[in-house]
Every structure is written in structure tokens, then in C-alpha cells.
């Protein structure tokens, strides 16, 4: 399903790396994901991130406990 046909090119970059002047290719599944995230209200988007980050932090804490 993930393919290059029908992909679109957008400009992108990362706060951590140098700005990216090259277009980034997105496949249809990624475009769909972006569309759905954009359709969320600001509060819904924040809720989604908060939920994801809470899970990630709990996982990181568990991994840190294993390393001790």
C-alpha cells in the first residue's frame, strides 16, 4: 500500500537539524494522516500528543528501571 505512485512533495525540516531545503516525498497514507491531524481541533491535537507523550514517558521510565 505504501508506494511512490501518487505521492506528493512538500517542504519540510526539523527543529533539531538544519532546515531541509529538499522536498520531502509523502505517500498517500502519510497525506491521509496529515489531513486527519489537521482536521483535529487544537485541543484535540494537544490531547492526542499528551496521551502519546504520557505513554512514551511511562515506557521510558520502565526501560530506565530495567537498566538499573
Amino acid at each position: 500500500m505504501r508506494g511512490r505512485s501518487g505521492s506528493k512533495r512538500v517542504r519540510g525540516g526539523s527543529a533539531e537539524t538544519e532546515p531541509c531545503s529538499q522536498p520531502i516525498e509523502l505517500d498517500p497514507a502519510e497525506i491521509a494522516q496529515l489531513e486527519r491531524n489537521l482536521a483535529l481541533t487544537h485541543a484535540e491535537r494537544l490531547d492526542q500528543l499528551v496521551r502519546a507523550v504520557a505513554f512514551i514517558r511511562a515506557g521510558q521510565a520502565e526501560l530506565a528501571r530495567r537498566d538499573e
Partner: protein
Amino acid sequence: MSEARAFDPEGLLRALQEYGVAYVLIGGLAASLHGSPHVTTDADIAPSAERENLARLAAALEAIDARIRAPGVPDGLPFDRSAEMLSRSSILNLTTRHGDLDLTFVPAGTGGYEDLRRHAIEITIRGTRVVLAALADVIRSKEAAGREKDRLTLPALRKLLDEQRGRD
């Protein structure tokens, strides 16, 4: 888009656990758990392609109302969620009631589930069992995928791996 399909990694992975699906978590969420600063809003898994596991995966996908992710279709497109169909698939980009889920049976640069399982880490996060790909395997698959978005995250992941190895 309905809030019901917003990303909830805990709900997603708990559903896989409830149906006994054998998988390894890879991609951006796995990288985040290892300490990557990039936060993702989907989960990527490499499921076992064993026949019994595909039946369990099919049941889990049914339970979480998995649909094919497609531009212009916020709730996704319905598809045949049978084990038979899964056995003929290599990659499925899905949206579910717990958010987006990508299934890749043989992620780039890896030999699939059995290969990734060898060095995977089993952890329990808030009561949910997660089989997490080793950071080196996450890096290996992102390097092989060679997508721009992966290339941007690789420097941070390699640094994390160096730090991990320095602690061992």
C-alpha cells in the same frame, strides 16, 4: 476526523495484547520509547506471519475497526480483515479507533518478526505488555527505508545508541 480515531498508543497496544497478537513495535513510537525527541502519532508493528497469529491479528483488527488509511477519507476505507488477506499482504497503513497503525511484515533492512524478536525488549507499560524492537534494529530499518523523514531522525537515534552502548 472523529476524536475516536485520535492516536492512543496504549489502547492500540492493549488491543493487540488482549487478542494475543505476536508483534514487535518498530518505527517512530519505538524510537520515542528509546529516547528519541521526535513524537509520533502512529504505531508501526512487524507482526508474526504465523497462520495462528494472523487469525489473532485479524480478530484484533476487527475489534479496533481497522480501515485502510486514504487521503480524503477521514475514517478510512473498509477492507477484508481476514487472516487470508493478511497472509497476502506485505504492508498495510491503517486507521483504527485508537489511531493510526502501520503493519509491515518485513520492515526494510530486517528479516521480519523473527529477526526483530531476537533482540527485542519486553516491557510492561501501565499494564500493557509491549515487545519493543532494539534501538539498533530501529536504526537499521530506518537506514534501509532511506526516506527523508527517517534520515532526519537518524542522527539523534545514532547518538542514543552510542549512549546506550556506553552504559553497557
